[in-house]
């Protein structure tokens, strides 16, 4: 979650936004005018999937899917060629344990840098409630890739004179705590009152555009597969079930001793567990503890959830009475995390790899997940005067006519040895 903080925040940002807004003083007369659509947000708006920003999945970012449903021409995104930036993760083997690696070593390149205007999709991977209003550059990071020195995300949005805006920001104000395994107020967690002030500033900055605005609240990041997949107990690799000794599961070893049953172990622990770290010697492990960075204890989970609740209250409060509509994506995610949703008899859940909603990074959605998300936005849009047709999930499920033979097509398989070889041959490229 290392992320460069902008240093040259423009003091004129507010003035610029206000000026653009005056110029486009066509008020909210047309709530269903989608002619100029701008999406503001973070990686979830950008369409990041399987740890990568890549055109094949950007084509199914939720803003791109909304734009298609609304028949919007010229919805421009900061496209990146295969295999994406950074290279997209892929699943190469399921047995004995799933192996997920980047599909190539050399990242893709941006292919739409020359667009002489801001992108319609201004989602910036890594951006939080501070960045959206303040950050212009981040030393070669994702802000530079997408904002291209043309102002902050909000400034660029206003410059496009949008008629319709979606905003989904705030995930990175809390996600860092979940991904880093450390919930620290002011460091990995933005204090709720700070978030509230920033969100108020965002609402104030966007209101003058006169656009129809829909914002999305923050999901409980402790229910994503990055957090929920690995249980806090030793698992028998043969049965994939918790190992029982004398009828009882064996807790993993955390930084402060055996993990409580309500602790979470993040996907980042997987390579450590594979080396026996965190596993007691009595069941064949090394007996050394997992580091704090891969464990969320109950207090940390509670702190994260408190912040999510606080942010979502702040979003309700600051948008109240402004005509801004809210999508409660937190409730949607809870449905997938607790029981799932049947689509034509196939149960979609928040489960890793087999749930259909989350991609191989355990954080970002799949194409299908983004379509489900897009349909939730469309539902809210239609509740506020829109009449968009929902996105057809059938091709994304691989069903529909002519799909049967494709569904039976053998998957590419790598043995674990082959995968191990690959990871040795192509050492990981660390992100700057």
């Amino acid at each position, binding site marked *: 979650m290392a992320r460069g903080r902008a240093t040259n925040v423009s003091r004129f940002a507010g003035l610029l936004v206000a000026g653009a807004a005056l110029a486009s003083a066509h008020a909210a007369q047309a709530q269903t005018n989608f002619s100029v659509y701008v999406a503001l947000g973070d990686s979830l708006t950008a369409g990041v999937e399987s740890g990568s920003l890549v055109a094949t999945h950007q084509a199914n970012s939720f803003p791109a899917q909304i734009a298609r449903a609304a028949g919007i021409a010229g919805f421009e995104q900061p496209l990146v060629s295969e295999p994406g930036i950074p290279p997209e993760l892929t699943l190469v083997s399921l047995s004995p344990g799933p192996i997920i690696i980047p599909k190539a070593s050399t990242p893709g390149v941006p292919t739409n840098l020359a667009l002489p205007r801001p992108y319609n999709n201004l989602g910036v991977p890594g951006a939080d409630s501070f960045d959206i209003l303040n950050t212009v550059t981040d030393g070669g990071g994702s802000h530079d890739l997408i904002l291209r020195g043309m102002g902050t995300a909000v400034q660029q949005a206003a410059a496009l004179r949008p008629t319709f805006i979606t905003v989904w920001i705030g995930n990175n104000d809390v996600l860092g705590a979940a991904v880093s395994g450390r919930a620290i107020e002011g460091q990995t967690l933005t204090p709720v009152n700070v978030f509230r002030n920033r969100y108020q500033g965002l609402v104030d900055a966007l209101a003058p555009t006169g656009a129809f605005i829909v914002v999305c609240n923050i999901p409980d990041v402790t229910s994503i597969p990055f957090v929920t997949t690995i249980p806090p107990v030793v698992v028998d690799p043969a049965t994939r079930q918790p190992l029982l000794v004398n009828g009882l599961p064996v807790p993993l070893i955390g930084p402060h001793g055996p993990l409580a049953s309500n602790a979470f172990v993040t996907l980042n622990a997987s390579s450590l567990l594979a080396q026996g770290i965190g596993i007691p010697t009595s069941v064949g492990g090394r007996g050394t503890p997992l580091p704090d960075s891969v464990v969320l204890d109950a207090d940390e989970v509670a702190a994260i959830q408190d912040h999510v609740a606080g942010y979502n209250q702040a979003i309700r409060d600051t948008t109240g009475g402004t005509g801004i509509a809210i999508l409660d994506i937190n409730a949607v995610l809870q449905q997938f995390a607790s029981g799932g949703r049947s689509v034509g008899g196939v149960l979609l859940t928040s489960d890793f790899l087999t749930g259909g909603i989350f991609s191989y990074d355990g954080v970002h959605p799949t*194409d299908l997940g983004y379509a489900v998300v897009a349909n939730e936005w469309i539902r809210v849009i239609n509740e506020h005067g829109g009449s968009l047709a929902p996105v057809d999930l059938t091709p994304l499920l691989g069903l529909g006519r002519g799909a049967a033979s494709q569904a039976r097509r053998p998957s590419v398989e790598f043995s674990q040895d082959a995968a191990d070889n690959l990871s040795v041959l192509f050492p990981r490229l660390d992100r700057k």
Partner: protein
Amino acid sequence: MSTGHRRSAALGVLTALSLALAATTARAAGFAIFEQGARGMGFAGAFTAQTTDPSAIFHNAAGIAFLKGKHLYLGGTLIHPSADFIGAAPFPGEGLIERGDAGYIFPPAVDYTQQLSDRLTVGIGLHVPYGLRTSWENRDTTYTGRFVSKRAELNNYSINPTVAYKLADRLAVGGGLDVRLSNVGLERNVGIINPFTQHVVDAASVDLESDTNTGIGFNLGVVAKPTEDLSVGAAYRHKVKIDFNGQATFTLLPTGSMQLDGVIAQRLPSGAVPVTTRIEFPSLFTVGAAYTWNEWIFAVDVDFQQWSSFDSLPLTFEGRPDLSSVIEESYVNTRIYRVGAERRINDRWSVRGGYYYDETPSPPESVSPLLPDATRHGLAAGFSYEAGRWRVDVANWYLIFKDRSTEGLNRDNYNGTYSSGAELFAVSFGYSF
């Protein structure tokens, strides 16, 4: 969210490779059958107050009290149901078309009555008061509803010993024991997300077949004839609960990935698993009247069907709570309105016709590939030929189903509009001893 976390290491452990087996739906619907004799069908089923043939064993037990001597009445109805489905977004997609291929059903109806004294008559009938068959083209391969239901079959036979007693020349009561023999078959595919492709893949076919199980109910009726020409009747058939035992046979389907096949084999049974379910067939209360005027008979009935007894369908897999489920049905009580008329042409020939209006008990949430039930209009036409001790009745029903939309509410999010229809052709032979 950052794109920053990349993982190249093996995920050493992973328990959450759960397979979403979720027991989707097996739901039945408005599956009542009123085709219990070709003469009554010619009246569109408005037969509760009529006492002219042994099918009264089904329509109103008291009616047989007016049949002198011995009578045998037997026949059957050839039913050809049809169903087309037009999909809606988000699934299975706007304009996608699926077609039913349920083929033909042939429920028989056999009744025998014997007068024991001036006042007492007994009889026995074999009827099919409920039944269901739905099935879809390309159900094993490309049918988009195959994870909900690709085939459903319900057979329900009633063996109905009956006794009726004349309290007066124009007043009779009757009752019967309603022994039901029933079996149910449900077939669907299990669809899971293939972790490699992130597309749905068919993991298994599940074929649930029950044994023939038994339930017992009863029926009561009364017929009064206030004048020579007017007959009124009321009949009640109690609900019957049947507990089904059977086997669910899992056939694992190759996914194209041996590793995934291995995971599926760990999670799904292969072969037969004992399974139980339960259906409470609704009670039925009917009132009707028939009026004779010269060569004409006019009849009218109202049926009150207590479908609210069908509120859920539990599918319990023995020792496998992970596969078990309870499916909400939430049917509502309905009415059926029937009118019919007969005109006698001469000693040998008579013709008849009728109409009925049948409300669906199924809320839109429960409208599914298993039974895409809809409100229907029934048009009836028929004729009879009589010769001495023999008679032959022929009837044809043409059912016009209202298009039924799931209104985006289907419990499995399998949404669209069903256009159903059915044609029924019935023949019954009567012989009086």
